[in-house]
Protein backbone atom coordinates (compact mmCIF):
# COMPACT_ATOMS: atom_id res chain seq x y z
CA UNK A 1 0.00 0.00 0.00
CA UNK A 2 1.05 3.56 -0.63
CA UNK A 3 2.12 5.06 2.69
CA UNK A 4 0.52 8.40 3.51
CA UNK A 5 1.78 8.87 7.05
CA UNK A 6 3.70 11.93 8.10
CA UNK A 7 5.44 12.32 11.45
CA UNK A 8 3.38 15.14 12.87
CA UNK A 9 1.12 18.09 12.20
CA UNK A 10 4.05 20.28 11.23
CA UNK A 11 5.07 17.95 8.42
CA UNK A 12 1.41 17.57 7.47
CA UNK A 13 1.14 21.33 6.94
CA UNK A 14 4.22 21.65 4.70
CA UNK A 15 3.45 24.02 1.86
CA UNK A 16 0.74 26.12 3.43
CA UNK A 17 1.12 29.77 2.58
CA UNK A 18 -0.52 33.15 3.05
CA UNK A 19 -3.53 33.78 0.84
CA UNK A 20 -4.44 30.14 0.38
CA UNK A 21 -7.93 28.63 0.54
CA UNK A 22 -8.50 25.96 3.17
CA UNK A 23 -11.38 23.57 3.75
CA UNK A 24 -11.93 22.52 7.35
CA UNK A 25 -14.22 19.70 8.44
CA UNK A 26 -16.49 19.75 11.46
CA UNK A 27 -19.97 20.83 12.49
CA UNK A 28 -19.94 23.24 15.38
CA UNK A 29 -16.99 21.95 17.43
CA UNK A 30 -17.68 18.31 16.58
CA UNK A 31 -15.19 16.61 14.31
CA UNK A 32 -12.98 19.67 13.80
CA UNK A 33 -9.29 19.19 12.94
CA UNK A 34 -7.98 20.52 16.26
CA UNK A 35 -4.33 19.77 15.58
CA UNK A 36 -4.30 21.41 12.16
CA UNK A 37 -6.06 24.52 13.50
CA UNK A 38 -3.48 24.81 16.28
CA UNK A 39 -0.70 24.54 13.71
CA UNK A 40 -2.25 27.21 11.48
CA UNK A 41 -2.38 29.52 14.50
CA UNK A 42 1.20 28.68 15.43
CA UNK A 43 2.48 29.32 11.91
CA UNK A 44 0.60 32.60 11.71
CA UNK A 45 -0.48 32.02 8.13
CA UNK A 46 -2.35 35.13 6.96
CA UNK A 47 -5.12 36.27 4.60
CA UNK A 48 -6.57 32.83 4.25
CA UNK A 49 -10.01 31.91 2.97
CA UNK A 50 -11.70 29.23 5.07
CA UNK A 51 -14.47 26.99 3.78
CA UNK A 52 -16.06 25.55 6.89
CA UNK A 53 -19.68 25.08 7.93
CA UNK A 54 -19.13 27.12 11.10
CA UNK A 55 -16.55 29.51 12.46
CA UNK A 56 -15.94 27.96 15.86
CA UNK A 57 -16.52 29.81 19.13
CA UNK A 58 -14.54 32.74 20.48
CA UNK A 59 -11.76 30.69 22.02
CA UNK A 60 -11.89 27.37 20.18
CA UNK A 61 -11.94 25.98 16.67
CA UNK A 62 -11.67 28.57 13.90
CA UNK A 63 -12.29 31.24 16.53
CA UNK A 64 -8.60 30.87 17.35
CA UNK A 65 -7.63 32.01 13.84
CA UNK A 66 -10.18 34.81 13.97
CA UNK A 67 -8.65 36.09 17.22
CA UNK A 68 -5.31 36.43 15.44
CA UNK A 69 -6.91 38.06 12.35
CA UNK A 70 -5.53 35.33 10.12
CA UNK A 71 -8.74 34.87 8.15
CA UNK A 72 -9.55 37.16 5.23
CA UNK A 73 -12.74 35.43 4.17
CA UNK A 74 -15.10 32.82 5.60
CA UNK A 75 -17.38 30.67 3.45
CA UNK A 76 -19.90 29.09 5.83
CA UNK A 77 -23.55 28.29 6.33
CA UNK A 78 -23.92 29.31 9.96
CA UNK A 79 -21.72 31.55 12.06
CA UNK A 80 -23.92 32.47 14.98
CA UNK A 81 -21.84 31.28 17.93
CA UNK A 82 -18.97 33.70 17.82
CA UNK A 83 -18.94 37.29 19.10
CA UNK A 84 -15.49 38.15 17.68
CA UNK A 85 -16.63 36.84 14.32
CA UNK A 86 -19.70 39.07 14.41
CA UNK A 87 -17.60 42.07 15.34
CA UNK A 88 -15.11 41.53 12.49
CA UNK A 89 -17.91 40.89 10.02
CA UNK A 90 -20.00 43.92 10.93
CA UNK A 91 -16.88 46.17 10.96
CA UNK A 92 -15.96 44.90 7.49
CA UNK A 93 -12.59 43.45 8.60
CA UNK A 94 -13.78 40.00 7.63
CA UNK A 95 -15.34 39.02 4.33
CA UNK A 96 -18.17 36.52 4.75
CA UNK A 97 -19.99 34.44 2.18
CA UNK A 98 -22.97 32.62 3.61
CA UNK A 99 -24.33 29.71 1.58
CA UNK A 100 -26.90 26.99 2.24
CA UNK A 101 -25.52 24.06 4.19
CA UNK A 102 -26.51 21.46 1.61
CA UNK A 103 -24.95 23.53 -1.15
CA UNK A 104 -21.77 23.83 0.91
CA UNK A 105 -21.63 20.05 1.33
CA UNK A 106 -22.39 19.40 -2.32
CA UNK A 107 -19.84 21.93 -3.58
CA UNK A 108 -17.19 20.03 -1.59
CA UNK A 109 -18.53 16.70 -2.82
CA UNK A 110 -18.54 18.00 -6.40
CA UNK A 111 -14.89 19.01 -6.10
CA UNK A 112 -14.04 15.54 -4.84
CA UNK A 113 -15.97 13.99 -7.73
CA UNK A 114 -14.79 16.08 -10.67
CA UNK A 115 -18.28 17.50 -11.21
CA UNK A 116 -17.64 21.18 -11.98
CA UNK A 117 -21.26 22.30 -11.68
CA UNK A 118 -24.67 21.06 -10.53
CA UNK A 119 -28.19 22.40 -10.07
CA UNK A 120 -29.94 22.73 -6.72
CA UNK A 121 -33.25 24.30 -5.71
CA UNK A 122 -31.70 25.67 -2.50
CA UNK A 123 -31.64 29.45 -2.44
CA UNK A 124 -33.69 30.03 -5.56
CA UNK A 125 -35.49 33.35 -5.26
CA UNK A 126 -33.19 34.54 -2.45
CA UNK A 127 -30.06 36.69 -2.42
CA UNK A 128 -28.04 33.46 -2.61
CA UNK A 129 -29.23 33.12 -6.21
CA UNK A 130 -28.07 36.59 -7.28
CA UNK A 131 -25.79 36.42 -10.29
CA UNK A 132 -26.29 32.68 -10.69
CA UNK A 133 -27.87 30.91 -13.62
CA UNK A 134 -31.43 29.79 -12.85
CA UNK A 135 -33.07 26.97 -14.77
CA UNK A 136 -36.24 24.96 -14.60
CA UNK A 137 -36.10 21.20 -14.19
CA UNK A 138 -39.31 19.20 -13.74
CA UNK A 139 -41.37 22.34 -13.29
CA UNK A 140 -39.22 23.67 -10.47
CA UNK A 141 -36.56 26.37 -10.48
CA UNK A 142 -32.96 25.53 -9.63
CA UNK A 143 -29.70 27.44 -9.58
CA UNK A 144 -26.29 26.46 -10.89
CA UNK A 145 -23.62 25.98 -8.24
CA UNK A 146 -19.93 25.28 -8.81
CA UNK A 147 -17.42 22.93 -7.24
CA UNK A 148 -15.12 24.57 -4.72
CA UNK A 149 -11.41 24.99 -5.36
CA UNK A 150 -9.12 24.81 -2.36
CA UNK A 151 -5.43 24.35 -1.67
CA UNK A 152 -5.66 22.28 1.50
CA UNK A 153 -8.45 20.31 3.13
CA UNK A 154 -7.99 19.62 6.83
CA UNK A 155 -10.15 16.79 8.12
CA UNK A 156 -10.43 14.84 11.33
CA UNK A 157 -11.34 11.15 11.48
CA UNK A 158 -11.77 8.67 14.29
CA UNK A 159 -9.53 5.91 12.92
CA UNK A 160 -7.20 5.89 10.00
CA UNK A 161 -4.56 3.61 8.56
CA UNK A 162 -1.16 4.19 7.00
CA UNK A 163 -2.69 3.90 3.51
CA UNK A 164 -4.86 6.93 4.31
CA UNK A 165 -8.14 5.04 4.74
CA UNK A 166 -10.50 6.79 7.15
CA UNK A 167 -13.38 5.86 9.45
CA UNK A 168 -15.47 8.51 11.21
CA UNK A 169 -17.52 8.30 14.39
CA UNK A 170 -21.06 9.50 15.06
CA UNK A 171 -21.98 12.98 13.93
CA UNK A 172 -18.30 13.98 14.01
CA UNK A 173 -18.38 12.65 10.45
CA UNK A 174 -20.34 15.61 8.94
CA UNK A 175 -18.37 17.53 6.27
CA UNK A 176 -15.11 15.67 6.77
CA UNK A 177 -15.65 12.91 4.16
CA UNK A 178 -16.97 15.37 1.57
CA UNK A 179 -13.84 17.53 1.88
CA UNK A 180 -11.43 14.63 1.35
CA UNK A 181 -9.96 14.88 -2.12
CA UNK A 182 -11.77 18.19 -2.67
CA UNK A 183 -8.56 20.22 -2.32
CA UNK A 184 -5.12 19.89 -3.88
CA UNK A 185 -3.80 18.36 -0.67
CA UNK A 186 -5.95 16.62 1.92
CA UNK A 187 -4.52 16.35 5.42
CA UNK A 188 -6.23 13.90 7.74
CA UNK A 189 -5.65 13.81 11.47
CA UNK A 190 -6.95 10.79 13.35
CA UNK A 191 -7.49 9.78 16.93
CA UNK A 192 -6.04 6.36 16.22
CA UNK A 193 -3.62 5.55 13.43
CA UNK A 194 -3.31 1.82 12.63
CA UNK A 195 -1.29 -0.20 10.11
CA UNK A 196 -2.86 -0.73 6.67
CA UNK A 197 -4.84 -3.96 6.72
CA UNK A 198 -6.22 -3.42 10.23
CA UNK A 199 -9.49 -1.80 9.18
CA UNK A 200 -12.30 -3.83 7.61
CA UNK A 201 -12.36 -2.74 3.93
CA UNK A 202 -16.19 -2.78 4.06
CA UNK A 203 -16.24 -0.21 6.84
CA UNK A 204 -13.91 2.38 5.36
CA UNK A 205 -15.73 5.67 4.76
CA UNK A 206 -12.99 7.36 2.77
CA UNK A 207 -10.44 5.35 0.76
CA UNK A 208 -6.84 6.52 1.03
CA UNK A 209 -6.76 7.76 -2.56
CA UNK A 210 -8.54 10.92 -1.35
CA UNK A 211 -5.93 11.61 1.35
CA UNK A 212 -2.38 12.85 0.76
CA UNK A 213 -1.11 13.03 4.35
CA UNK A 214 -2.25 11.36 7.55
CA UNK A 215 -1.00 11.68 11.11
CA UNK A 216 -1.88 10.67 14.62
CA UNK A 217 -3.46 13.67 16.30
CA UNK A 218 -2.66 14.68 19.87
CA UNK A 219 -4.42 16.00 22.95
CA UNK A 220 -7.95 16.20 21.59
CA UNK A 221 -10.07 18.46 23.71
CA UNK A 222 -13.30 17.67 21.85
CA UNK A 223 -15.11 20.50 23.54
CA UNK A 224 -18.89 20.28 23.86
CA UNK A 225 -20.70 23.42 22.70
CA UNK A 226 -24.16 22.79 24.19
CA UNK A 227 -24.15 20.25 26.99
CA UNK A 228 -27.77 19.08 27.20
CA UNK A 229 -28.66 16.19 29.48
CA UNK A 230 -31.62 14.61 31.25
CA UNK A 231 -31.72 13.34 34.80
CA UNK A 232 -31.33 9.63 35.44
Amino acid at each position, binding site marked *: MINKTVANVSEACEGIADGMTFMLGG*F*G*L*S*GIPENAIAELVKRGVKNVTCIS*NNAGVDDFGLGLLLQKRQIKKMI*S*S*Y*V*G*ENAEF*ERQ*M*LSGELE*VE*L*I*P*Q*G*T*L*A*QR*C*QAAQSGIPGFY*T*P*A*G*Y*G*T*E*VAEGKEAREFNGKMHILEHAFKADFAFVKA*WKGDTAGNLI*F*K*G*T*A*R*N*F*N*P*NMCGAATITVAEVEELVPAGTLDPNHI*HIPGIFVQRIFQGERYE*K*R*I*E*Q*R*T*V*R*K*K
Partner: protein
Amino acid sequence: MSLSKEQIAQRIAKEVKDGYYVNLGIGIPTLVANFVRNDIEVEFQSENGILGMGPFPFEGEEDPDLINAGKQTITALPGASFFDSAMSFSMIRGQHVDLTILGAMEVAQNGDIANWKIPGKMVKGMGGAMDLVASAENIIVAMMHTNRAGDSKLLKACSLPLTGVNCVKKIVTDLCVLEIVDNQFKLLERAPGVTVEQIKEATEGDLIVEGTIPEIVF
Protein backbone atom coordinates in the same frame (compact mmCIF):
# COMPACT_ATOMS: atom_id res chain seq x y z
CA MET B 1 -55.37 32.67 26.00
CA SER B 2 -52.56 32.49 23.50
CA LEU B 3 -50.58 29.26 23.33
CA SER B 4 -47.29 28.72 25.14
CA LYS B 5 -44.32 27.54 23.11
CA GLU B 6 -44.94 24.06 24.47
CA GLN B 7 -48.54 24.22 23.31
CA ILE B 8 -47.50 25.33 19.83
CA ALA B 9 -45.21 22.31 19.73
CA GLN B 10 -47.99 20.10 21.08
CA ARG B 11 -50.38 21.22 18.35
CA ILE B 12 -47.79 20.68 15.63
CA ALA B 13 -47.11 17.21 16.97
CA LYS B 14 -50.60 16.25 15.78
CA GLU B 15 -49.40 16.79 12.19
CA VAL B 16 -46.75 14.13 12.61
CA LYS B 17 -48.00 10.86 11.11
CA ASP B 18 -46.96 7.26 11.51
CA GLY B 19 -43.96 6.44 9.34
CA TYR B 20 -42.79 10.04 8.94
CA TYR B 21 -39.17 11.12 8.77
CA VAL B 22 -39.09 14.56 10.36
CA ASN B 23 -36.52 17.34 10.46
CA LEU B 24 -36.92 19.71 13.40
CA GLY B 25 -35.43 23.19 13.41
CA ILE B 26 -33.95 24.94 16.42
CA GLY B 27 -36.29 26.50 19.02
CA ILE B 28 -39.98 25.59 19.28
CA PRO B 29 -39.68 22.85 16.60
CA THR B 30 -37.23 20.94 18.81
CA LEU B 31 -39.98 20.69 21.45
CA VAL B 32 -42.28 18.87 19.03
CA ALA B 33 -40.41 15.60 19.67
CA ASN B 34 -41.72 15.62 23.25
CA PHE B 35 -45.36 15.55 22.17
CA VAL B 36 -45.44 12.97 19.39
CA ARG B 37 -47.86 10.13 20.21
CA ASN B 38 -45.97 7.09 21.32
CA ASP B 39 -48.16 4.63 19.44
CA ILE B 40 -46.72 5.77 16.10
CA GLU B 41 -43.25 5.28 14.63
CA VAL B 42 -41.41 8.44 13.64
CA GLU B 43 -37.70 9.06 12.97
CA PHE B 44 -36.02 12.38 13.53
CA GLN B 45 -33.31 13.49 11.13
CA SER B 46 -30.75 16.06 12.13
CA GLU B 47 -28.94 17.57 9.15
CA ASN B 48 -25.51 17.31 10.75
CA GLY B 49 -25.70 13.59 10.11
CA ILE B 50 -28.02 11.38 12.14
CA LEU B 51 -31.27 9.60 11.44
CA GLY B 52 -33.00 8.10 14.47
CA MET B 53 -32.09 10.86 16.92
CA GLY B 54 -33.01 10.11 20.52
CA PRO B 55 -33.45 12.28 23.63
CA PHE B 56 -30.68 14.11 25.51
CA PRO B 57 -28.17 11.76 27.16
CA PHE B 58 -28.22 11.02 30.88
CA GLU B 59 -25.82 13.17 32.86
CA GLY B 60 -22.28 11.92 32.42
CA GLU B 61 -23.08 10.11 29.18
CA GLU B 62 -22.61 13.09 26.83
CA ASP B 63 -20.53 12.30 23.75
CA PRO B 64 -18.86 15.20 21.89
CA ASP B 65 -19.13 13.08 18.73
CA LEU B 66 -22.90 12.89 19.02
CA ILE B 67 -24.75 16.20 18.65
CA ASN B 68 -27.76 17.59 16.79
CA ALA B 69 -27.95 20.53 14.39
CA GLY B 70 -28.33 22.87 17.39
CA LYS B 71 -24.96 21.55 18.67
CA GLN B 72 -26.72 19.96 21.66
CA THR B 73 -25.57 16.59 22.98
CA ILE B 74 -28.06 13.88 22.02
CA THR B 75 -28.41 10.11 21.85
CA ALA B 76 -28.96 7.68 19.00
CA LEU B 77 -31.91 5.28 19.16
CA PRO B 78 -31.49 1.60 18.25
CA GLY B 79 -31.70 1.48 14.44
CA ALA B 80 -30.14 4.93 14.01
CA SER B 81 -27.53 5.67 11.36
CA PHE B 82 -24.77 8.24 10.91
CA PHE B 83 -23.79 9.77 7.57
CA ASP B 84 -21.91 12.67 6.02
CA SER B 85 -23.31 16.10 5.21
CA ALA B 86 -23.69 15.43 1.48
CA MET B 87 -25.79 12.35 2.17
CA SER B 88 -27.77 14.25 4.80
CA PHE B 89 -28.80 16.79 2.20
CA SER B 90 -29.50 14.00 -0.28
CA MET B 91 -32.23 13.05 2.18
CA ILE B 92 -33.46 16.64 2.33
CA ARG B 93 -33.02 17.78 -1.27
CA GLY B 94 -34.12 14.37 -2.57
CA GLN B 95 -37.43 14.79 -0.69
CA HIS B 96 -36.99 11.71 1.44
CA VAL B 97 -37.78 13.68 4.59
CA ASP B 98 -41.58 13.80 4.99
CA LEU B 99 -42.01 16.81 7.22
CA THR B 100 -39.94 19.88 8.03
CA ILE B 101 -40.80 22.01 11.03
CA LEU B 102 -38.96 25.27 11.46
CA GLY B 103 -39.16 28.73 12.95
CA ALA B 104 -39.51 32.01 11.05
CA MET B 105 -39.12 35.74 11.50
CA GLU B 106 -41.67 36.42 8.77
CA VAL B 107 -44.05 34.43 6.57
CA ALA B 108 -45.82 35.94 3.57
CA GLN B 109 -49.23 34.95 2.30
CA ASN B 110 -47.70 33.47 -0.85
CA GLY B 111 -45.70 31.04 1.27
CA ASP B 112 -42.42 32.97 1.27
CA ILE B 113 -40.39 32.67 4.45
CA ALA B 114 -37.62 34.80 5.99
CA ASN B 115 -35.66 33.45 8.93
CA TRP B 116 -31.92 33.90 8.48
CA LYS B 117 -30.88 37.51 8.37
CA ILE B 118 -31.70 40.99 9.60
CA PRO B 119 -29.49 43.23 7.46
CA GLY B 120 -26.97 45.17 9.49
CA LYS B 121 -28.16 43.65 12.72
CA MET B 122 -28.20 39.87 12.85
CA VAL B 123 -26.39 37.69 10.37
CA LYS B 124 -26.07 34.18 11.67
CA GLY B 125 -26.50 32.38 8.37
CA MET B 126 -29.11 30.11 6.89
CA GLY B 127 -27.58 26.82 7.96
CA GLY B 128 -29.67 24.10 6.34
CA ALA B 129 -32.87 26.15 6.21
CA MET B 130 -32.63 27.17 2.55
CA ASP B 131 -32.11 23.57 1.47
CA LEU B 132 -34.99 22.45 3.68
CA VAL B 133 -37.55 24.99 2.51
CA ALA B 134 -36.55 24.70 -1.16
CA SER B 135 -36.96 20.93 -1.11
CA ALA B 136 -39.55 19.86 1.44
CA GLU B 137 -43.07 19.23 0.21
CA ASN B 138 -44.50 19.56 3.68
CA ILE B 139 -43.31 22.54 5.70
CA ILE B 140 -44.85 23.72 8.94
CA VAL B 141 -43.71 26.96 10.50
CA ALA B 142 -43.77 27.31 14.28
CA MET B 143 -43.61 30.90 15.53
CA MET B 144 -45.10 33.67 17.58
CA HIS B 145 -47.80 35.57 15.68
CA THR B 146 -46.19 38.94 16.35
CA ASN B 147 -42.68 40.10 17.17
CA ARG B 148 -41.59 41.74 20.42
CA ALA B 149 -42.64 45.15 19.14
CA GLY B 150 -46.10 43.75 18.54
CA ASP B 151 -45.83 43.80 14.73
CA SER B 152 -47.39 41.01 12.73
CA LYS B 153 -45.03 38.33 11.40
CA LEU B 154 -47.71 37.15 8.92
CA LEU B 155 -47.37 39.56 6.06
CA LYS B 156 -48.57 40.41 2.59
CA ALA B 157 -44.91 40.27 1.58
CA CYS B 158 -41.75 39.58 3.56
CA SER B 159 -39.58 42.59 4.33
CA LEU B 160 -36.50 40.62 5.37
CA PRO B 161 -34.18 38.72 3.02
CA LEU B 162 -35.94 35.52 1.96
CA THR B 163 -35.01 32.00 2.94
CA GLY B 164 -37.32 30.46 0.36
CA VAL B 165 -40.21 31.27 -1.95
CA ASN B 166 -43.73 29.82 -2.12
CA CYS B 167 -42.86 27.01 0.19
CA VAL B 168 -44.67 27.26 3.53
CA LYS B 169 -47.83 25.14 3.73
CA LYS B 170 -48.98 25.56 7.30
CA ILE B 171 -48.26 27.89 10.22
CA VAL B 172 -48.91 27.32 13.90
CA THR B 173 -48.58 30.44 16.04
CA ASP B 174 -49.47 31.26 19.62
CA LEU B 175 -52.84 32.50 18.30
CA CYS B 176 -53.94 30.07 15.62
CA VAL B 177 -53.36 27.47 12.92
CA LEU B 178 -53.19 28.78 9.37
CA GLU B 179 -52.86 27.26 5.96
CA ILE B 180 -51.54 28.98 2.83
CA VAL B 181 -54.33 28.78 0.22
CA ASP B 182 -54.43 30.77 -3.01
CA ASN B 183 -51.83 33.23 -1.77
CA GLN B 184 -53.74 34.00 1.40
CA PHE B 185 -53.71 32.86 5.01
CA LYS B 186 -56.66 30.58 5.64
CA LEU B 187 -57.62 30.40 9.30
CA LEU B 188 -58.14 26.78 10.38
CA GLU B 189 -58.16 26.79 14.18
CA ARG B 190 -57.79 29.38 16.93
CA ALA B 191 -56.16 29.14 20.34
CA PRO B 192 -58.69 28.54 23.12
CA GLY B 193 -60.29 31.86 24.04
CA VAL B 194 -58.64 33.82 21.25
CA THR B 195 -61.19 35.48 18.96
CA VAL B 196 -61.14 35.69 15.19
CA GLU B 197 -61.09 39.44 15.63
CA GLN B 198 -57.87 39.28 17.66
CA ILE B 199 -56.27 37.09 15.00
CA LYS B 200 -57.34 39.48 12.22
CA GLU B 201 -55.82 42.34 14.10
CA ALA B 202 -52.52 40.54 14.57
CA THR B 203 -52.31 39.49 10.91
CA GLU B 204 -51.03 41.96 8.36
CA GLY B 205 -51.58 39.60 5.42
CA ASP B 206 -54.96 38.71 3.92
CA LEU B 207 -56.86 36.34 6.15
CA ILE B 208 -59.56 34.00 4.89
CA VAL B 209 -62.16 33.14 7.52
CA GLU B 210 -64.77 30.65 6.34
CA GLY B 211 -67.61 29.60 8.63
CA THR B 212 -67.05 28.94 12.29
CA ILE B 213 -63.42 28.54 13.31
CA PRO B 214 -63.00 25.79 15.90
CA GLU B 215 -60.71 26.05 18.88
CA ILE B 216 -57.49 24.04 18.84
CA VAL B 217 -57.89 20.63 20.44
CA PHE B 218 -54.72 18.99 21.72
